[in-house]
């Protein structure tokens, strides 16, 4: 019996490579094209025609993304809403989407951002992280940061400066926003907007386990917005649904907000809103107005 147990231990340690990291990512890579307004799959909401984006302001293109630890680049897809020729004077929102599917799913949200403060008022940049939509590769935390930075680098090459960059993260997307603000690469944003942010994978694991289990027991991910936000001095806008059934407003969002010690911060707790319902329950006009006021403040 002793030998059997010893064998199980040795075999398991040698072969143990199970981690729940992949569960954080929920991509759909089955699509063959981006349909944007013609997308008929499940969406959180669909905007009316007044939020339409003129076709000449919709730019779909590819970027090469390479994480510091990688030797080859990965081709990812990006969408820029706005006039590329005026990026050198425009204010641009870098929108980092959540863990679900692909950019078609988030297209309506990107349109809302573009229309905050007026029709097509802001440029909006969005990428499908590797493994999402038409982007090549497999999702990973480091890859996601590299993918967002590839978008920032493209914006920089087209004339965007730090003072006109706003970073917006929703759910999973709050990780690259906090990471690339705390440890800037191509550009340093002037303001942050976090919608339904994670505090950290540690909180995710502890919420699930009740006991204070170390996150390394189940995941190799190191997302830690609650710590990274401590070194962020830029103004912060935090939006979170009070009825968020996925990321607890108290154990996740509130901790991130409390840990921010920067020059300015504001919180919007949206009554009755679940994880993906913030723009809807806030009210589209209220949501857009609040974003615009924060950006212009």
């Amino acid at each position, binding site marked *: 019996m002793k030998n059997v147990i010893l064998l199980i*231990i040795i075999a398991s340690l040698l072969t143990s490579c199970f981690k729940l990291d992949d569960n954080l990512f929920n991509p759909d890579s089955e699509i063959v094209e981006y349909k944007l307004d013609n997308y008929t799959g499940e969406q959180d909401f669909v905007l009316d025609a007044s939020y339409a984006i003129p076709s000449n302001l919709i730019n779909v293109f590819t970027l090469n993304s390479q994480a510091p630890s990688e030797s080859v680049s990965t081709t990812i897809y990006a969408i820029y809403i706005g006039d590329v020729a005026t990026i050198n004077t425009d204010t641009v929102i870098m929108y980092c989407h959540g863990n679900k599917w692909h950019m078609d799913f988030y297209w309506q949200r990107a349109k809302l951002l573009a229309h905050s403060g007026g029709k097509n008022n802001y440029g909006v940049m969005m990428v499908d992280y590797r493994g999402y939509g038409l982007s090549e590769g497999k999702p990973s935390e480091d890859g996601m940061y590299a993918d967002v930075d590839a978008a920032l680098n493209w914006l920089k090459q087209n004339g965007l400066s730090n003072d006109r960059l706003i970073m917006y993260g929703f759910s999973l997307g709050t990780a690259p926003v906090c990471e690339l603000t705390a440890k800037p690469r191509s550009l340093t944003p002037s303001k942050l907007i976090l919608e339904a942010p994670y505090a950290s994978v540690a909180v995710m694991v502890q919420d*699930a386990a009740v006991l204070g289990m170390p996150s*390394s027991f189940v995941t190799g991910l190191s997302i830690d917005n609650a710590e990274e936000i401590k070194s962020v001095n830029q103004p912060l806008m935090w939006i979170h649904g009070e009825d968020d059934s996925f990321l607890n407003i108290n154990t996740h969002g509130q901790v991130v907000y409390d840990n921010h010690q920067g020059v300015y911060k504001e919180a919007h707790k949206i009554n009755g809103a679940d994880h993906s319902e913030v723009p809807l329950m806030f009210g589209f006009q209220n949501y857009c107005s609040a974003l615009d006021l924060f950006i212009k403040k």
Partner: protein
Amino acid sequence: MPSRIVRPLDKGEKAVNLHVGGPLIGFAGKTIPVPFTSLMYAQGVTDKTTVFGSLHTTSLLFGVVQTDIGACQNIYYNDSLKLGFSVAPAINMAYDTWEGNFKLWPQLDVNAYWDIKPQKSFVYVGVDNWFELSGTKAHNQSQKNRWIINPQIGFTHVRNKWNYNIEGKWLTPYLKNTPNVVDYKGISGKGAVGIYISFTRKF
């Protein structure tokens, strides 16, 4: 995990046990028990005391060496009612081989059991208690759940060489199971129902 030992083994008796099961969760549109597994070895020290130790095999697959070591003590038995009470204090320990993190938490299993036939099958009800030693969680947040209570009910079908056990637990029935990144299936939105089956070979 299910109760390790509810009714102590006979003095000198040995047993090896495999358990499968865990809390029910929603996964890919279906409700499934988390597929936790563990192997346990137990030995009767006296007719009233059994010691045990386990290896959590699912945890091993994640590079985590986890064990619980304890003893079951029969504290009361009524011959006419065939009713007994036992307690099983244990220490849980887990160590991950990736980052070297270690976690220890005590446990106390308290059960009442009824022998259905003399020395044969039995049913039991009880409470599994876990104790969190740390007063803080990640990011220095206060840990409010220091004593975790999980009521349980089970049935053990006893054969000559094998025991077959099924147990249901209601894990943390006093805590709301949302919001949470795991879609736990509880009762009236509280806790999680756990289903465990186990097979025991006696020597």
